[in-house]
Structure formats: C-alpha cells, structure tokens
C-alpha cells in the first residue's frame, strides 16, 4: 500500500491509502472527538462532531474526519477557532436532547458548551445511529430503524422483528452514547408480547400488546 504524506495540526504524518483523517490522526496521537463512529461499522458521518478544517488546493473547507480519506499534501486542522465553535454549538444542540449523557458532558467541558443553552427536548436520542447500524450491519436483523425525517426523525424498534430477535441480544444497549435507557425503554415496549406469552390479537401499529392499560 502506498504511503501518503500529509500534515495534521502542523505535524507531518505518513498514512497509508484508504485511511481516513481520523485514522491518520490517531497514529500520531491526535484525538478527534467522535460520537457516531464505530470501528466495526461502515463510516456514517452523521454527528459531525469530528468536523475538521482541511485545505484542498488552497481552499479551506469543513469535512468529517471520520470519513474523509487522506490525500497527498492535505493540510488538516483538528482544532481551530472555527472548528471549536462549531463543535460547541453542535454539542449544545445535542445536549438539548440528552442533557445528562456522560459522553456529551465530557465534550461540553472541553469545548465550553452550555448544556442549558437551548430549550430542552428530552428525547435522549442524538441520532448517532449506532443501534440502527449495528443491528443492520453486524447482526443483520434490522430490528431497529429510523422513522420519519428532518426534525421528526427518531429511532424505532420494529415490533414484529424486535419481539423475535431482541430478547436475547440487546447488544445495542451499551453502544448508546446518551443512555442505554433510551434503547431499553423503547425496546421493552416493543418486546411485548414476550416470546412465550400468549399471542395478542391486537393489530394496531403501536406496541400496546393488545391489552388495555399496559400502554401509556
């Protein structure tokens, strides 16, 4: 594999083809924050917290470090006033959903993000998609997915699949960066009826189990 020379935060870095900026930075001990990145999963580039500044043929632009492939003579800045400012706002936007998530709080400290800047919308989910992608790519079960789009996008377990597959798996729980509660909460609802319980006759699309009073 051919060697690629580039510069990250002033350091000369020798990377190999196919590496991302994130990979290359790691080899010289430069840490770029990530939330949606996972080594076992396909690159996603959703959370954008790994945003870095690069200069391509003299033009500065913002790219996601976790997906941007290394190029010859690339100049990368993983911390700059602009990058820090963007990370700060992104964190504040995510903290509106998951104010108590430990990972977010640690990053908030680093970037001076105010957890109370935006009105709280505690859905707990920051749409990193780790649960969705893990279930699809590693487990190949597609028991959890995204529904709707834009501001209304949310994760949802597919009851027909989840009731069969999730019971003894739950491998997505520890992946959730905000709190495993979110996944567990939704999952628990969708897991009714339990595999050995009576099959419900309810055909509604929610996860109410068909017995009145068990839903909200």
């Amino acid at each position, binding site marked *: 594999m051919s060697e690629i020379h580039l510069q990250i935060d002033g350091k000369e870095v020798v990377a190999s083809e196919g590496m991302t900026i994130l990979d290359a930075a790691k080899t010289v001990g430069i840490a770029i924050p990530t939330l949606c990145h996972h080594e076992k999963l396909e*690159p996603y*580039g*959703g*959370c*954008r*917290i790994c*945003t870095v500044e690069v200069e391509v043929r003299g033009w500065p632009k*913002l*790219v*996601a470090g976790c*997906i*941007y*492939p290394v190029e010859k003579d690339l100049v990368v800045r993983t911390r700059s006033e*602009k990058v820090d*400012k*963007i990370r700060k*706002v*992104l964190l504040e*936007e*995510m903290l*509106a959903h998951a104010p108590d998530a430990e990972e977010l709080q640690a990053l908030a400290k680093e970037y001076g993000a105010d957890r109370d800047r*935006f*009105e709280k919308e505690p859905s707990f989910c*920051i*749409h990193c*998609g780790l649960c969705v992608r893990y279930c699809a790519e590693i487990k190949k079960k597609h028991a959890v997915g*995204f529904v*709707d*789009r*834009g*501001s*209304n*996008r949310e994760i949802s377990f597919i009851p027909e699949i989840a009731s069969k597959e999730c019971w003894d798996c739950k491998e997505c729980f520890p992946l959730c960066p905000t709190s495993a509660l979110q996944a567990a909460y939704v999952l628990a609802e969708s897991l009714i009826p339990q595999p050995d319980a009576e099959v419900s006759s309810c055909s509604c699309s929610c996860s109410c189990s068909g017995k009145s009073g068990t839903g909200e």
Partner: protein
Amino acid sequence: MTMLSSPEKLECARKDIVSRIDPTKPCISVCAGAGCLASGAAEVIAAFKTELEFHGLTTEVNTKGTGCPGFCERGPIVMIYPEEICYLRVKPEDVAEIVSHTIKEKKLVDRLLYVDPATGEKATRESDIPFYKNQQRNILSENLRIDSKSIDDYLAIGGYSALSKALFQMSPEEVMGEVKKSNLRGRGGGGFPAWRKWEESRNAPDPIKYVIVNADEGDPGAFMDRALIEGNPHSILEGLIIGAYAVGAHEGFIYVRQEYPLAVININLAIRQAGERGLLGKNILGSGFDFTVKVHMGAGAFVCGESSALMTALEGRAGEPRPKYIHTAVKGVWDHPSVLNNVETWANVTQIISKGADWFTQFGTKGSTGTKIFSLVGKITNTGLVEVPMGVTLRDIIEKVGGGIPGGKQFKAVQTGGPSGGCIPEAQLDLPVDFDELTKAGSMMGSGGMIVMDEDTCMVDIARYFLDFLKDESCGKCTPCREGIRQMLKVLTNITTGKGKEGDVELLEELAESTGAALCALGKSAPNPVLSTIRYFREEYEAHIRQKKCPALSCKELIAFHIDPDKCKACGTCFRQCPAEAIDGGKKRIHVIDQEKCTKCGTCFDVCPPRFGAVRKISGEPVPAPIPEEQRAMA
C-alpha cells in the same frame, strides 16, 4: 412501426412525416401543460373537436395539445396556425366563436387577444407579446411546436438528428469535447460544469456506468423541469442517449417525482416510442451502441433532488445523502460511475450537439453560457416560465418579461434558488443572472425558482417559511442540518410572534455557521434564506425584536386592525363579513373592532370600500382605545 436501423432510414422517415404535413392547413394548438390543464385546457380541446365536427372541418383543421409555452398566468393558451394567432384565457364557451370567426372567416376574436396594460394595444401573435418578446426561448419554444405525445411531431422538427450526428459523425471524445467547449453548467442548482462529471465517469475504470436524469424538482414554486419533461420528453431522452454514448454508459435512469403524473406518463410513452423506432435499446440506429433507460418514481422527498440521496433512493433505500468525498461520477449508483444531470441540462445537450458549441456560447456570459429557464412566481404580473440568456439582469426579468409588480405595490425582494437560495433586494436588481454573480450576492441560481415579493411581504417571515419547509424536508441524518434548522426555526418563530429578544440575530448567525458542517449541500445551504434576509433586511429583524413591530404589517401576532372613527361611514360591510363577529356596529353607528375577539384574518381590511379606507393595520404601537359608546352614533 418501422425500425430506424440507419441514419438514412431516420432521414427518410422524417421526410415522409414532413411531406404529410401541409403547412397551410390550419392547426389549433392548445397548451396541455399542467397549468393550463388545471384551468380547463382539456375541456377546451374537447370543445374544439366537437365544434370542428359540427362544422364538418375535422379533416381540414388539425387540433393538438402541446407542451407548456410558459405564459401560465393567461392560460389556457390557444395558438392558431399558420397565422400564429394567440388567444389567451380561452374557455370552452369561446370555442364556437373562434371556429366560426377565425377558422372559417379568418377574422380575429378581439377580446381573447393580449392587451398591453401600459399602452392598451392588442397583440395578435405570440411574438408581439412583451412577455415573450423579451425572452430567448431556445428550449421552451419547441414545447409549442409539438404534440408532446407524438414522436412523429418531434421527428418533424428535427428530433433525433443530434443523436444520429453524435453516433455516426462524432466519436465519444468529440461529443465530450463539444460539451466541454460549450461550457454547459448544470441547471439543477450547483452549476457544476457538465463535462467534468462526464469526463470523470468516462475515465473511471469500472465498465458499468450509468447516466441519470434528475427530474425530482422540489423547490416551492418551481416547475421548469415539469414543463420540459411533460412538453418535450424526447428532447431529454435524446440528450441522455447522447450523454450515455459520450460517457460509455449502456443504462440510464430517469428519476421523476410521482407528484408529476403527466410527466411520468409522457416520459414513459416517449421511451416506448423511441424503443419501437430503434432509437433506444440494442444497436441504436444501427450504430452498434446499446442503451436502455428506466423510469424511477420518487416518493416525494425534497432531499432526493440531492445527487447522492437520489442515487441511494434509486438503489431502493431511504433517500439520504452520502458523503461525496469520492464523487458520484466515480462511485454512484451501486458504487458504479454515475453521471447525474438535471432535466434542463440534458435538453441543452441535445441542442449543443445539434447546433454546435459555438451556437450555444453566443448566448449568455463567459462563465455562464446559454439560456436558463426560470419559473417566475409570486407578486408578479406575468406568472409563468421564462427563458432568458444568462447575464440578463434580474430587473429585466422582473420588469420587462414579468411586467412588474401588480396592484401598484412596491418591489421588495426576489428569492432565487429555492429553499437553499436567498433574497435579493431592490439595490441588487441590476445583478446579471449568472451562477457566480448570484452566489456572490448570497443567493444561488438553484434550479431556477424565482419568487417575487412586494412591500407586503415580511422578510423575517419568509426566512421562517423556508426553514419550516426545510425542517420537514431535511433527511435528519446529520446534526448540523437537523438540529440547526430546528433551533433557527424556533428563533425565527419567536421573532415573528413578538417573543424575539436581543441577541437573536447573532444566535441565528452562529447557528447558521455551524450548519456549514452539514453532510450535504442541502444542509450547508439551508441557512441561506436566513443569512440573506439578515444581510439585506436586518432592520426588519430589529424592528420585530425591539419594537415588536412588523414593518410589512404581515406577522399576525404583531399587528392589529383598527377602524378609524373619522373615516368609518357605518356601511356595515365589515360588520357583516367579519367571520369572528368581532365588529360592533349598526345603522349610523361607527364600527369598532373588539381586539379580544379579532382573529386578524384581515377580512375587514380587504372589504372596507377603498373610498372610505377606514380600516388600517397597526404594528409596533398601541391600538387606540375604542371610542366611547355615546360618541358612536353618527349625525
């Protein structure tokens, strides 16, 4: 159906079709585009058929439904050939008169002609109408010459001769060279040079390549692509096959939104007709070149107009953008090199090959060659589709072609580029329409939506409107776009409802900056409506925030309606029409609006006779106290 197995056979077939057309035979063409159909064009066509039959003229006079000529404001549009008489806003009840007068006696039906509002002069022919006169309709003019469902009509005007020329007189490299020389830039929004995508794809080692038509036109108010694909589907197909030949692709897709049912029908019909004639499929025109094309219907997501999202959707997955650090021209649909161009771009390819790059570059500016079609909508006298050479000024489009602002109102801004574009104020109206100039002004060419706004439009509310659109149309994958739009919309909603506070404009700017880290161009450009209105109309933001005043008197929460007791003549019109029963009045009693009950629908304002003008809108100041009961009786 004869297969056209060589260029000679194509020319023979063309000659045969043309020989059967008698140029002196009267022909009644009715626009059968979506706009005119909505105003009753189908009934008009039916009425003509019945009327001609009644007069026994069916064999002597042709009738056809054509594509959209663009003057949608005045539809349904009827053209009578060979005299080229243009009748506007034709209704089925006008048809008998047209047949008896114009067809039989060669006399004009005066009341259906265009009247110039400035001079009062009547125009008989289309080319005399200022709306058309000030355009350069290289592409749109063909819409009017053909029945969009007839391949023979397209062949009669020279259709597929560009394809024949490309396949038999040019190498793929020469086709590429001609497109490069024309400097054709993508008409879908970004303005990326078409040849660069083509070249990248052609040079990619993967032998499986695709060419795609992007007909997922989703900008509010835009319908250029719709008119082209409905009106002249073969011209797009021809451009696509030429592109495939240049790139080395043997399969193509047309991604068209399902909300355009007529476009879907017409393009499918065109594909079938072209296949039957040997212009699609194996060994096209006997050249040895194979190409097939499939139509894919989009399910109504704005974001699927973005190239990588469109390709993801083509693969059968949820339409979400992917990072494009490796261009889709190299790794697109199913990871194969894929050239995606907009409908209008493909239509231009046909003309460039047919007439040459030198012909093409005589129109437009150095950086932006050719013509561009805009859909001119909003507060404008002549709503419709306009095609102008690049480089004309916005002022010319709005005033000369568009006929200015109706109702004596003042122009305020023009929004170009759809939800990703920006608002351009009066001071910038002499800006030439050019990819780079519009970007410099903080807007963008976009696909060609042009929304004109007058003094009654609140610029903060316009920004809010576009963000509200984007809130639902963002795919939601990346944080800056999903959350940035959510937060910006909240701030804008606060400002327009009187809850704005100091620092809100700065907060919007900060949120807009972070949106620059979004994954796709749609997200990155999402703050443009906000940034451009702040840039040019900052004082409106400040008035909303500081004085709780909407200068355009448009934001409901910030305005009140008041009846001036000195002007009210107790005519009772507003009293009777107020749907909220919020007006206290009676015979010879000055009317008063109960502010508690008022829903601010504006009915009283609209119905108060102009000679009284007693109802006024108030913003940023207290509503005068209602006059005491005892003083309400009029003398």
